[in-house]
């Protein structure tokens, strides 16, 4: 009988530890347990038999570490492993028991990018090979277990769904802080797993049942809409006479598992340290308990790799700054492949207080799919906020949803059949909440009722695709009030109608003021009115003080800010900034030398009222930078000071850029990259900020950069100076390869190299043009390379926003 028909409706028991028992049977340290499927078939069968005998319904195959990174013969071992469970089950099935073989899939042992070096799609492929082997071998289900990382779990579940029709179960490892080792909470895991269409979700390993009861299980129960699996360790391990023993015995374990069952967990089993005896006693103590199958109400939850955010509780701010519409500077950054500018916008918006970041990179000149993927991935490397994937291109949307680490908000679908046909299958497959625009083939209705009608149709269509209505967030479209003075009223009335239907709402607030003066005023008041009607999300500019004022004040007034604490903190912070603006009696030179960022910005603003921008650069900023730079070279100034001065100088440059009209001059463009295989880029980042200070336009390709990417970028943008960094001896070969490829492809560029293990000899040996011992040496080399005449013309950004 299909396990899907039973799971969650009746109590099912998993098995206990595999590794622990195999070790007792003689598995040697360092030996892969999976090879025992081939070398010790009787032992493996006996292990499975013991669990069936104890009463387990579902026994996992001995394939935890079976993947193509470690084994050439994945298919062979998979077939044997499933066969062993089947053989062990046969006598019990003969007695009328129903026994299941769950194909066990554990972590790959290599961390996915960006913090590790395993590309996401490679992880999916590795899991896919195991899944296909499992299907071929005749497994009844896929059990993905002991997941420490949400991203790897997502890769595994995707692989399972794409390569089989089998039920897919996922259990992950939480610690006592209630997080996976890479940060995901129980709420996040559940939202992501359910979004991907998991059949059951849960927790295993690391903790004993007591700790799971305390830190994890209640949280899982409060958010899961699929059956839960709980497979704890037998408590914590310790050494006794040279052996590992666990501190929770079978009797205590089973008593605790009874509590787990009483809370409403239908699937019970064990992990490290548990034996058939643990399972037998657990079954004895829980068999008589009724299975509860009530689930909480479904909610709109989006997540990053770490935390989950429920939409609909308190109005959510979605930062709109990473969207090229009307932003010249961002458009230029996208054309130039300057993802680092997007990262700055991401971090700044997060610091300003948004809860979700919109990511839209749609400009005609670029490959949107590629750029959106890269932007999403790199923003997730620096921000733990959920992202809103914002694109009109379904293939870009799919690519980004696929590699997104979490459950995204998707912007958008609309009432056109074509749009729904393109977007809903993606939401169904990858999971996500989706913004639904109330427009269709006939355009945007002029009435609130018309817009509500479209929302109803969108919701019906979503439901027919298997997407719950809770996942739809309706955007009833803010239209410009200058064109039609009823438009704001219609939008506000639409919000009310959506609320009546129990639907969540979102608005791109600033559209309302288009074409009118003092837009921020209109935006802020409209925002306040919309919040009053119950608006759930606003796509907005968090650098607008008016908008932020409204949000904090409205939350306090609407009872959404306990004890008004957030309002008071905000009030204190904004007051502080105003004071800081007033007090600064240093000169700009001093402010930069002492690394005072805000003072430098303020002083530059003052100076620019009386001096020409070029004079400010040449008479104030540059001399300060030179002072600090030469101090660093003489070892009287140290790295943190050098960088603080660089940040202060940047703040001053930002002010100068506001004054200089288009047509400024760049000193030269330089590519920086940390080479393939190297994931440590701190040195490269230091070099970057100093080069920028000295007026260079830096194209930062990031870390773990393949040689081809460096070559392509150098050719595409005609760059003549390239800086490469490598931290370890093991990655210097990749540096050598990059230089070799640049020469082979006849890229006319000089290469300067740096990094902890490099020396002049090493640099010579790999064919570099220059070895730079530290960041200042790179600057000096660039100065010499681009010529002395550049010195007096500092970088003017002609792309003012």
């Amino acid at each position, binding site marked *: 009988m299909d396990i899907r028909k039973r799971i969650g409706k009746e109590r099912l028991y998993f098995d206990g530890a595999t590794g622990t028992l195999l070790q007792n049977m003689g598995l040697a*340290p360092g030996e892969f347990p999976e090879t025992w499927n081939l070398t010790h078939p009787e032992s493996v069968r006996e292990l499975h038999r013991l669990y069936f005998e104890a009463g387990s319904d579902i026994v996992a195959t001995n394939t935890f570490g079976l993947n193509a990174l470690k084994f050439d013969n994945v298919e062979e071992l998979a077939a044997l492993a499933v066969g062993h469970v089947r053989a062990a089950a046969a006598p019990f099935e003969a007695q009328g028991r129903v026994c299941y073989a769950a194909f066990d899939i554990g972590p790959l042992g*290599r961390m996915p990018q960006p*913090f590790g070096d395993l590309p996401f799609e490679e992880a999916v492929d590795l899991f896919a090979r195991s899944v296909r082997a499992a299907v071929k071998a005749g497994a009844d289900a896929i059990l993905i277990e002991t997941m420490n990382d949400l991203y790897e779990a997502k890769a595994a579940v995707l692989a399972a769904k794409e390569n089989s029709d089998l039920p897919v179960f996922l259990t992950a490892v939480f610690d006592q802080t209630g997080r996976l*080792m890479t940060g995901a909470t129980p709420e996040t895991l559940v939202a992501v797993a359910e979004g991907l269409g998991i059949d059951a979700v849960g927790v295993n390993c690391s903790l004993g049942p007591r700790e799971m009861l305390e830190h994890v299980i209640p949280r899982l129960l409060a958010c899961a809409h699929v059956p839960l699996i709980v497979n704890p360790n037998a408590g914590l*391990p310790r050494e006794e006479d040279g052996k590992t023993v666990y501190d929770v015995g079978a009797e205590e374990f089973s008593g605790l598992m009874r509590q787990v069952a009483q809370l409403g967990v239908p699937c019970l089993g064990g992990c490290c340290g548990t034996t058939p005896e643990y399972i037998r006693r657990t079954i004895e103590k829980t068999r008589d308990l009724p299975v509860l199958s009530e689930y909480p109400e479904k909610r709109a939850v989006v997540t990053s790799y770490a935390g989950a955010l429920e939409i609909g509780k308190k109005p959510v701010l979605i930062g709109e700054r990473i969207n090229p519409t009307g932003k010249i500077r961002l458009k230029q950054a996208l054309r130039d492949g300057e993802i680092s500018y997007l990262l700055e916008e991401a971090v700044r918006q997060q610091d300003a207080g948004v809860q979700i970041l919109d990511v839209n990179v749609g400009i005609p000149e670029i490959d949107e799919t590629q750029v959106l993927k890269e932007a999403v991935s790199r923003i997730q*490397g620096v921000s733990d906020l959920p992202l809103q994937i914002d694109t009109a291109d379904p293939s870009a949307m799919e690519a980004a949803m696929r590699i997104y680490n979490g459950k995204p908000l998707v912007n958008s679908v609309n009432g056109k059949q074509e749009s729904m046909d393109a977007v809903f299958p993606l939401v169904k497959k990858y999971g996500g909440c989706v913004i639904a625009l109330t427009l269709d083939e006939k355009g945007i209705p002029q009435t609130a009722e018309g817009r509500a009608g479209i929302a109803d149709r969108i919701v019906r269509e979503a439901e027919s695709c298997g997407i719950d209505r809770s996942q739809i967030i309706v955007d009833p479209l803010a239209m410009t009030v200058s064109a039609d003075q009823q438009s704001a009223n219609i939008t506000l009335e639409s919000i009310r109608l959506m609320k009546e239907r129990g639907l969540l709402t979102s608005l791109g607030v600033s559209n309302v003021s288009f074409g009118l003066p003092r837009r921020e005023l209109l935006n802020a008041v409209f925002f306040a009115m919309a919040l009053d009607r119950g608006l759930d999300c606003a796509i907005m500019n968090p650098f607008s003080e008016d908008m932020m004022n409204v949000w904090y004040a409205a939350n306090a007034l609407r009872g959404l800010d306990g004890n008004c604490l957030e309002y008071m903190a905000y009030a204190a912070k904004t007051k502080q900034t105003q004071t800081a603006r007033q007090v600064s009696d240093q000169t700009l030179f001093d402010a930069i030398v002492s690394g005072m960022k805000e003072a430098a910005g303020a002083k530059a603003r003052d100076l620019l009222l009386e001096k020409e921008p070029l004079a400010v650069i040449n008479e104030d900023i540059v001399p300060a930078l030179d002072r600090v730079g030469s101090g660093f070279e003489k070892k009287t100034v140290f790295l943190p000071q050098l960088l*603080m001065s660089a*940040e202060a100088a940047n703040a001053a440059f930002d002010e100068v850029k506001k004054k200089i009209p288009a047509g400024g001059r760049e000193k030269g463009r330089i590519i920086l990259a940390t080479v393939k295989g190297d*994931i440590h880029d701190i040195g490269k980042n230091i070099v970057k900020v100093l080069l920028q200070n000295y007026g260079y336009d830096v194209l930062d390709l990031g870390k773990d950069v393949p040689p081809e990417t460096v070559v392509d970028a150098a050719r595409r943008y005609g760059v003549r100076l390239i800086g490469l960094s490598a931290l370890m001896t*093991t990655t210097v070969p990749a540096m050598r390869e990059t230089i070799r490829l640049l020469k082979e492809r006849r890229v006319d560029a000089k290469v300067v190299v740096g990094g902890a293990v490099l020396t002049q000899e090493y640099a010579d040996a790999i064919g570099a043009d220059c070895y730079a011992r530290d960041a200042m040496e790179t600057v000096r080399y660039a100065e010499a390379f681009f010529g002395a005449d550049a010195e007096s013309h500092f970088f003017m950004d002609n792309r003012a926003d």
Partner: protein
Amino acid sequence: MTPVIGLFTAEAEKIAIPDREIWRYLGYRGNVPDGAVLEQIEAVRREFLGAVQYKACFAKTKTRRNDAGGIFFPFGTVRSKALERSLAGCEEAYVFCATAGIGADRLISRYAVAEPARSVIADAVATAAVEAFCDSLCASFGGSGYLRPRFSPGYGDLSLEYQSEVLRYLDAARKINVQLTQSMMMVPSKSVTAIAGIGREQCAVPSGCRTCTQKDCAYRRR
């Protein structure tokens, strides 16, 4: 015999991160940072405490010199003159892996976007922190004998390659989520693998910077 893998953890606040070590990693070579930098260090330290997740796994193993010139461990034979000196007279050793967790890497990356000074400071704080955590782990190893200074792959002539054997032996990927990239870098990056001999008597063996051949390193302890 199957290794007994012990687990060790500590709350962020319980590990004192020595200022002088942070300064050393920042390249101060015995100098004291000025007030503005000290303020930044404190701000970063506060955020770091919210990001760090200390975890370690360890095993007590037998060790002995082979006739063939290698050092025997249950996970394989190690060839290193420097480690041999460190373990002289030891029949047992602790092998361990300790980490500050991926949160430290994330903090460093986030700062790198717009606050490079803080990024560099966070890197130094995290490095000093994981070393301090190792001290705390080593102090927790009770029992008879004297613990020798820890010795890590990459020190002296002890090849980085041994990292993979140590991590596999300790089941570190599963136990504490420390993994290796193909270029032998540990993820999370603020992680340490090390071997510390257990001697029957106290003796001074060269350790840390003194075993390193890179004499002009900016971080060298003096």
